[in-house]
Structure formats: C-alpha cells, structure tokens
C-alpha cells in the first residue's frame, strides 16, 4: 500500500541539515487555549498518542506491539516511544521531506490502511502538532518530558447544580524547570458517568445530583479529583437537622449536606435486628430473639444487642472465614497428603477464630501471620515433639491445638512453591489493600508502582524458606525416615518441614532492565538490606504499623466498613490506588487514625460503626438519596456471603446441612475452614460465589446475582428436599401453631424477621381459598418466603 522510502538514511541526514536552519514554524493552538510554539516529542506528542488511544494495551501499547509498531503502555516510557516513532526502521514512520506523507499521520488519519481506524482528522490540532514536530526534523530530546509535578485543579469541582459544565486545568512541571498547561494532552474518565461526564478536553459536566471521581491520566501520572454535583432543590428547601451519634455520622452527614442529599430515617427495630444479626454472626435472628428484642423497652437495647453479637462465637467464625479469604486459605494448595488438606484448612480457620474471640489487636494478628515461622523460636527437640503431637491429632480428625501456636505458619506452607513475587502480591493485597499484579510486567497503569517497586517489594520475602533449616536437619531427617516406612505411598507421607528464615536470599528477583540485584524495599518505603539474623518481614511489619503508614490501618478499617455497608469507602476494598480514590477521604482517614489510637482494636471499631446512625439508617431511600450508592445515605440492599446463604437456608427450613468429610461434624457453613467440601452443597456454595481462594486478591468472592442462584432457590433438588422434608420447620410449625395466622406470623419471623403486613395477610388468605392441605399451604409459603428478594439480600 505504501511505497517504502528507499533512501531514508539520506533523507534524514539531509533533513537534519536542512531543518536545522529552517525558519520558526507555525504555532499550534490546543483546545485549552494553550499555544505550543516549540513542539517537543515527550512533552506533547506522547500525550497526543495517549489520548488518541494508540498506546493502549490492546493496540500498540501491547507488550509485543501491534503490526510491528510498539509503544510503551500508556506512554510511560516516552524516550523509547521517541525511538519507535521517529527512528526505528530507518525512520520509516515519518517523512521529513513531506511531513504529510508520514506513515504515522497517514495511518492515524485513516488515509492509509490502519486496523485501528481513524484516530483524528487531517484538520485537527493533533495532526498539526505531530506534523509540526516532523516538519522541524522530528527532534528527540531525551528526558525532556520527565514530569516532576502533576497538578489538576480544582481538586473538588464545585458545581452549583446538575447541567453545569466546568473545565479542569492540568499543569505539569518538568525536570528542566519549565511548566506547561497540558489539559489537552491528558486522558479523562469519570468514575460514575451517571453523575458527571467528562469529555476528552477535560471539561466536566454535572449530570445529576451526587459525586463522582474524575480520573486524569497522562503518561503514567494519575490523579483523581472529585466532582460534587448538589441536587436540585425545591424553593424554600431547608436541610433538616439530623441527629448524630459519633464522628462517623458527623463526617458522612457533612458530605451529604454538601450534596443536598438527606439521609434516610432510622431503621425499625426488626429491620435493624435482622441486618445486624446477619452482618455480625451470619445468621437470622430467631423468632424468640425478635420477640424479646421488640419487648425490650430500654433505651440502649441496640447497644446491648451489638455487644452481645460481637461476643458471639459465630461472629468469630464469620471473621475467620473472611480472613481465610483474605489470607488465601486455599485447601487444594496446602500440603499433601490429600486427606489432611481440609483439616489443615480447619486449623487455619481455628487459629484465626481464636484471635477474633480474644479480640487480639489487628497489628498483633497480622504479625502472627506475616512474620510467622514454624518453630516460633522453639528448640529443635521441642518442635519435633510438638509436631508429632499435632500430626497425631491431625491423623484422627479436625481436633487440633494449632490455634495455640503463636504464629500461622500454614499461611506460608504450600505444597507447590510460591514465588517471591506471588508473596509480594498476596501480602500487598491482604495487608495493604493494594493490587500490585499489573506492575509485574509494566508500570502500573492506574497507580504509582513500577516494575522496580514490584520486584524490590517481592524481595522482602526472599529469605522465607519452606524445608528444613540446617539446625533441624538431623532430627527432621530421622523423623521423616521413620514416617516414610509407615506411609504406603509417597503421596500419603506427611512430611515434617518448616518455614524458616535464611540468612541469604537466593530467590531474590533482579532489576528488570539491568538484571542487577535489587535491595528489598517496602512499597514506597525504605530499603531494607538483608542482614544476618534479621527477618525482613519483621522490618516490613514495623513499617506497616507506623502511624504514618497510609495503607495498613486504612485498608483494614475499609474492609470492616465494606463488610457492614456492602461497599467500602474505597471500593473494591482491596483496590487502593490513585485511580480509585475513597468516596469520603476524611471518613477513611479519621477511621484509620481512630483505629491506630485504639491500639488496632477490631471490636471497638466494629462497635463504633454499628452504633453509628449511618449504619442504623433504613434501607428505604427518599427522593433525594434514591440514586446514592457510595455515600451511605441509606442502608444498601446487598447480597450475603455464600456461606451465610447456606446457613440461613438451613435456619429457615429447619434442616441442617451436611458438609461431608471436609468439615467437622455439625458445622455451619461459616465455620468450615476448607475452601471446598465434597458434598452436594459445594454446588450451592459455588453459585453463590464462595471464592476458591486461589488469587492474590479477595476479588474472587463474587457478589453479583446470577441466574443459577435464582434457579437454585426455586427448583434445586437439594433445597427443595429441605423445604419438603418430613422433619423440618413446617412440621414443628404445624404442631406448635394450630392457628393459621399465628403460624404465618411465626414463618415470617423465621424468614423475613418481621411480621407480615396486612396486604401480605390478605394475599395469604386468598391463597388459602385454594383449599390446600395445611402442610402444602405452609410448605408453599416457606418456598415463597425464601424466594423473596427480602430474604436473600441483607438490607
């Protein structure tokens, strides 16, 4: 299609000579009014390529480029892009003699064949800018575009009402000391286009009342600002006074007021009781508990209930399950032999559960996971003796005293070796709320992390070894030799091994470009060279718990918040990044500080949240807050964890679940440590989104509704068997309540945790006219109740 320029080299030489003396070229005016007199490749052209989509991962930004032309992803490496665009293949992509005939421009404007189509037109400013650069000889000045400061103003876009448009302004400070307005050279997107839209030139338009993050990016720089769009109010509107219980209410309501958004009213007692019971212990309140709670007339009965629930053993089980997700308690990945894997998972769960029961401070809890060794400083003989005892118990069943071990070495013990970068990703997601994985291959597109950061952080874990330490070798070899004689097959051998810290770091990763050594470093923290006798994980831990650490405390309070509100202040909860700002930064910071000040007291933080009026608001929205999803102006209708779904279905039907050989007898789903159970209930756990715990993030827990869930509730054989069972709730109901309306009350309490409304009673009465037998009548009612959205969602 294009004839090759056969004398490129000559032309370049000529071009440089010629254009070196060329007169000043025309200026180019950008949409933001900025006039560019001296087009610079790194400062200007890379930005144009970025906003035109050329350097996307799906286009030329792909690792292998596209059609032979490679750009750095999102223009992070402007210097290399300069060589690709202007120099590679004898500069075939530009034509210094006839700039308009440059391959780059012909393709980008769709005049030449281009799989990516037309990116801009010949009469556009983008075209002019690139053309000018080529016309003046396509100069490259290495490092000219290095940015030292990136400022977006205003940081909060103060709309007066929907419909208004306001421009953003972006200024870059460069390493050469100059500054320039680069508003036209950035990329923009809105976190919620229903609230605020932003166009490609950085003009933001308020669509409807609410707030949205506007994310501005330019060559690896990412900044988020917030568009605040107050709701239109009727004339004479006066914002009502809203009672506040604690600082949470103060901060949340403050922001709502700015948006003219009025919080919903306080939840009713039954609504509150159902919500708080599901949230804290993963169960429905029983009809007796509901009646008792309604009868209690004391002013602090909600607080009393909260205290009671936070001490409930099921509350610890629920958090042990959540923490099992976060720490990756993936049964299949644990050590052989196969039949012990689910028991090891249960030990893991037990260990976590014990610490929640004791309300161990969060920093101590993490210390026990992050800095764990198998011996916890034990002498070799003592370790062997304890291991023997533990393994004897393990061979018998689920009983173990593992929870008494100071640290959770199971976290580090996996059948297949986990690479140091995997440990980096896992610990960053679990304890800092940061998703690092993008930086494995390239600079993180939405955050500050580079490949060097990624690998340096991974190297923090390069001393951790799983095997046998030199001082243990003799004893362990002897023990394993003995065990081997007893094991019929190799894969049935329960080997003694330990997690220990080596003095050197043979597994360390090297620099991605130079291949030189990389000193371990916390994310955005100090270097921590390997020192004999020092466990670098401990150094990392000390960095985490520093009161100025921006992630550690905030990421966990955000997880607690996310659990109790259905979405985090940063959401998803493990995605703290520059492109995903908190919906209410002040709230997150204050909660983080409070958490640190309390000595990382988890239960106190939970209580603070549960006591707040914000938590206790009704789910029923009003005119002003009906579209709110991120400012906590009403309680959110939210799905329950898969384990909780199973448990409440058992409760509602009155038939317990059987989890087979992978869980202790008489467990509830929330008490099961194993990430898979060999039982038909595994299907239900899977479709309701129980995570396999294989990935580094806890993003695996699927909280989206899905068709199979609805089909399960309506027609699954296993659930129908529970609903129709001969010895279930209906049987007791029919014998205990001879009066149909009382039985209906009881069944409503047992499922929806409230009494039926008048309309519902009438509907039931009408259904009764079908003259079904009493058992069928109430079985049908139970079916209908568990199939309501009110049953299956917490609210």
């Amino acid at each position, binding site marked *: 299609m294009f004839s090759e320029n056969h004398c490129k080299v000559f032309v370049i030489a000529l071009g440089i000579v010629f254009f070196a003396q060329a007169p000043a070229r025309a200026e180019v005016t950008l949409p933001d009014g900025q006039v560019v007199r001296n087009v610079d490749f790194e400062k200007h052209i890379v930005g144009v390529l970025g906003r035109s*989509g050329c350097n*996307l991962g*799906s*286009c030329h930004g*792909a690792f292998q480029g596209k059609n032979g032309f490679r750009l750095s992803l999102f223009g992070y490496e402007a210097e290399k892009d300069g060589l690709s665009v202007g120099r590679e293949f004898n500069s075939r992509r530009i034509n210094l003699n006839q700039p308009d005939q440059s391959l780059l421009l012909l393709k980008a404007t769709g005049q030449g064949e281009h*799989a*990516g*189509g*037309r990116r801009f*037109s010949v009469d556009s400013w983008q075209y002019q800018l690139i053309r000018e650069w080529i016309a003046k000889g396509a100069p490259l000045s290495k490092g000219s575009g290095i940015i030292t400061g990136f400022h977006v103003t205003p940081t909060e876009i103060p709309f007066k009402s929907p419909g208004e448009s306001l421009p953003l302004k972006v200024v870059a400070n460069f390493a050469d000391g100059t500054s320039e307005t680069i508003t036209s050279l950035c990329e923009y*997107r809105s*976190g*919620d*286009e229903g609230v605020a839209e932003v*166009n490609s*030139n950085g003009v933001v338009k308020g669509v409807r009342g609410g707030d949205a993050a506007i994310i501005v990016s330019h060559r690896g720089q990412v900044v988020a600002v917030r568009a605040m769009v107050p709701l239109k109010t009727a004339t004479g509107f006066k914002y009502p006074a809203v009672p506040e219980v604690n600082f949470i209410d103060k901060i949340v309501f403050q922001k709502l007021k700015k948006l003219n958004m009025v919080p919903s009213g306080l939840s009713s007692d039954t609504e509150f009781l159902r919500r708080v019971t599901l949230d804290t212990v993963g169960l429905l309140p029983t009809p007796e508990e509901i009646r008792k709670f309604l009868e209690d007339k004391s002013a602090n009965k909600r607080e009393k209930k909260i205290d009671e629930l936070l001490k409930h053993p099921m509350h610890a089980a629920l958090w042990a399950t959540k923490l099992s997700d976060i720490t990756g308690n993936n049964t299949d990945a644990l050590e052989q032999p196969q039949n012990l894997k689910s028991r090891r998972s249960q030990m893991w769960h037990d260990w976590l559960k014990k610490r929640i029961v004791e309300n161990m401070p969060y920093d101590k809890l993490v210390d026990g996971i992050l800095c764990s060794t198998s011996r916890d400083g034990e002498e070799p003989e003592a370790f062997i003796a304890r291991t023997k005892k533990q393994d004897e118990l393990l061979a018998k069943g689920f009983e173990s005293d593992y929870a008494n071990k100071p640290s959770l070495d199971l976290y580090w013990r996996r059948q297949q070796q986990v690479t140091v970068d995997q440990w980096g990703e896992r610990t960053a997601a679990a304890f800092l709320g940061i998703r690092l994985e*993008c930086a494995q291959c390239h600079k993180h597109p939405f955050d500050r992390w580079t490949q060097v950061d990624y690998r340096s952080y991974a190297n923090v874990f390069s001393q951790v070894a799983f095997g046998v330490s030199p001082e243990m070798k003799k004893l362990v070899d002897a023990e394993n030799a003995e065990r081997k004689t007893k094991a019929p097959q190799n894969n049935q051998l329960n080997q003694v091994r330990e997690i220990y810290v080596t003095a050197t770091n043979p597994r360390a990763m090297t620099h991605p470009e130079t291949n030189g050594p990389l000193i371990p470093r916390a994310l955005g923290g100090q270097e921590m060279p390997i020192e004999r006798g020092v466990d670098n994980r401990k150094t990392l831990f000390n960095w985490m718990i520093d009161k100025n650490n921006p992630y550690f405390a905030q990421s966990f309070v955000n997880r607690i918040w996310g659990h109790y509100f259905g979405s985090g202040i940063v959401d*998803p909860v493990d995605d703290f990044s520059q492109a995903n700002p908190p919906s209410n930064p002040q709230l997150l910071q204050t909660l983080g500080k409070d958490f640190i000040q309390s000595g990382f007291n988890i239960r106190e933080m939970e209580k603070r949240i549960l006591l707040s009026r914000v938590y206790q608001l009704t*789910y*029923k*929205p009003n005119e002003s807050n*009906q579209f709110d*999803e991120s400012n906590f102006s009403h309680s959110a*209708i939210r*799905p329950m964890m898969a384990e909780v779904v199973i448990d409440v279905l058992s409760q509602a039907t009155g038939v317990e679940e059987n989890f087979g050989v992978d869980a202790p007898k008489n467990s509830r789903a929330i008490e099961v440590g194993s990430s898979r159970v060999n039982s038909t209930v595994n*299907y239900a756990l*899977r*479709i*309701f*989104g129980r995570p396999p715990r*294989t*990935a*580094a*993030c806890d993003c695996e827990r*699927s909280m*989206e*509704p899905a*068709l*199979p869930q*609805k*089909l399960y509730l*309506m*027609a*699954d*054989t296993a659930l129908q*068997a529970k609903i129709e069972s001969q010895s279930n709730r209906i049987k007791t109901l029919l014998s205990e309540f001879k009066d149909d309306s009382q039985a209906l009350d009881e069944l409503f309490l047992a499922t*929806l945790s409230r009494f039926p409304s008048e309309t*519902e009673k009438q*509907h*039931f009465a009408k*259904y009764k006219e*079908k003259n079904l037998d009493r058992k069928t009548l109430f079985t*049908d009612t139970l*079916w*209908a109740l568990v*199939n309501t*959205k*009110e049953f*299956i*969602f917490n609210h």
Partner: protein
Amino acid sequence: MASRMQNDCEGFFRRDFLRIGAGAGLLGLSLPELLRLEAMAAKKGANQPAKKADSVIMVWLAGGPATIDMWDLKPEAPEGIRGAFKPADTNVPGIRISEHMPKMAKVADKISIIRSIYHSIPSHGPATVFMTTGNKPTAALQYPAMGSVVSKVLAPRPGVPQYVSFSDIRGGLAGNSGYLGTAYSPFMVEGNPNGGKTTLRVRGIQLPTNFTLDSLANRDDLLAGFDSTFRETDKNADLVQGFDAFHKQALEILRSDKTRNAFDLTQEKQETRARYGMEAFGQSALAARRLVEAGVRFVTISIGGWDTHGKTFEAHSKRLQPTLDNTLSALIADLSDRGMLDRTMVYCAGEFGRTPKINKNDGRDHWARSMSVVAAGGGFKRGYAHGTTDGQGMAPATEACLPDDVSSTIFHNLGIDPKTELQTSTGRPITLFREGAVIDKLLA
C-alpha cells in the same frame, strides 16, 4: 472531530469498557455488552469475523490421550516409539489414522485433524486449564473456559442455558468461569445416562420430579404477594432489578420443555441411540447434540481413562479407541446427516499427548510437546490434516500451533474476534486469546 471515537484496535472504544467494568448495572452490566458484541458479530466490522457456527460440542478426553496411536501414527519410527498399531486408510486419500478407529476413517472427509498442536505443560491440572481455556495458566489470573466465554459474549436463547457440561472437569478446576465470575459457570448435568434408562437432568434448571408446573405456578403467585418490599423504594437498585430479571428467566427455563425434551433420549430411534453407544459417554454425546438443537451454545462431554502410563496399547485397542470411534463418528455423521454440522463445531481434545517413547510398563507418559486434536464442522476445513510432527512424533515439524491458536480459530468461526477485550472484576482488560492467532489454513 467527535469527542467519542468510534473504535479502537479492538473495535471498541476503551471508555465504554471502563464504564461497564466500574459501572453499576448488574444485569445491565453484561447485557448491553453482550448485545453489543452480538451486534458487532452480525455487522462484521473491521475485526469481527463472519459467523460460521452457532454452537460447540467439546469432546474432552481426560487424562491425556496418546494421539500418536490415534491420529498421527509413526510406522516408520524405531521400535520403542512406533507403537503396536498400524495406520489405516480413511476415505480421504493420504490421511491415515489408527486401525482401531474404522468408523472415524469413514467420516474423515468431514473433519480436520490438527497434528501440529503442542504446548509445554506435562501436568494434568494446568494442561487441562490451558486446553480448555486457550490461555496458558498463570497464578495471577484464572482464565475462563471457552464455554464460559461463549456464554458471556453470545446472547442467550430463551428457555435454555448457554453452557452445559456433563463433567466437572478436574473437580471444577477446569471448565469454569474464572475471572468472568460465577454467572458464567457451566450448568452441570446430573444423573447417569448409562444404558437404556435415562435419568439425565441439568442441575437447577429442571423441577424435581415431585414438583409440578402447576405447583410452581401456585407458589409463584404466592411469592408475588410477598415480594413487593423493595418494589417502590429502590428504583436504582441494580441488585433488585437484576434478581427480578433472573426470576423471569428462571421461570422461562423451568417452564420450557426444551431442555427436558433434549434429555429425553427415548424420543430418538433405538438404532440412533445404539449408534452413539449405549454407555454413558455415547448417550451424553447424543444428549449434547439434542441440547445444541434446543439452542445451547456450548456443551462439554467427557470420557476419562486416557492416562495410560501402563499397558497403553491394550487400553487403547480394547476400550478407549473403540468407544471414541463409535461415539465421535456417530456424532459427526449424525450432525452431518441433519445438516447441523455446518453450524456446529465439534472439538475433540485432551490435556496433552503422550511420550513417543514407550516406557517399561508398555505405557506412555505425559508429553505436551506434540499431540493431535480433531476439529470439525462450523467453518473448519473438511478432510484435512493440518501440520505434521517429526519422524518420531516428538515435536511439530510443520505448521506448529498452540492451544491459543486453535481456540482463536474456534472463536473466529463463532463470529467473535479472538482479540476481543473483556474485563476482570478488578477492571483489568484481558484479551480473549492474547497469544493466539487464527489458523487460516484450517478455515473452510
């Protein structure tokens, strides 16, 4: 110029994806997206290939078949490699396959044998993931099985599920929805299609035997009276709207007799059933054909026993090849007779091949560096052998291709650009088959 660009390299504007990924709509989250993909497929845009097939039946040979003794025999190789079987002519001159698959020899004019596929993972789990997803497994990301991708990007048909699997491949490790989320997991078939009695059902989409449609209607009526709590209040709750939409869909599926009928194999002539083979595998293949007729997009059937570390020739000649020969040939011939082969792809593969070198137990061990697979129908060339392996069957000699390439070709035939970008729940854009390229020579 317009502030919104029409497309990028993928045929999509990136911001649309970001919005979908971050967006609120739950049901709406996937629906507009898939409708759009479908629309693109129909429009045959710059990158969107023409749609040649509507459905796929994947015939999974669990354990890793010794394809060197099936599709790519090496009679000239030294003893210790060439194996016990003789190659036999097929109805396509020049294509010879194992003497123990005489029925396949008679439908060779309807299939492509890909002899040059290879990969590098000789371990069951990850190799299965590789072959069923078309992406090399990584620790950082769980790729969805091809069936899950199909149910994500193609619009559902009323009353039937999109992706049905007869086997929980490797305990659910493979064949699942990976980063797409549980909504795109396969519907699992329960029951045993063994012998004459058929008790097949898809879990969750059919009413239990004692639960009648009348009773469902009754109960649903009662439910309607109890389910109005969120009705007035949450105009914007996607969860509520999504669940309502699923409720309608669920009723449609439960009321539809399409799936039920598909499993009623007694509606078939006895000789047809017999032709497929009366054992579980044969009957599930027949059920798979009926499911595709009913509108299901992707069906996986599976037969194990291919992990022949010992006595491989005995197992292959007595059991494995005769069974496969029977069923696979019947499936292809039946689809062809019914005019369905043009729009239905059949893909027969296992996780890897087996060592050309025969071990001391007269078996063959895991070998991923070379293997063969069979692809037929819906846009695949017919009567064609693609690529070759070297004289000892150790590695591809010509037309070497990867699982990614074959998967790309399958999606190309479905009218889906293999470079289509989807998003993980974390918003990370993932190209369907990043490393794959459509194998043009396989296209009819």
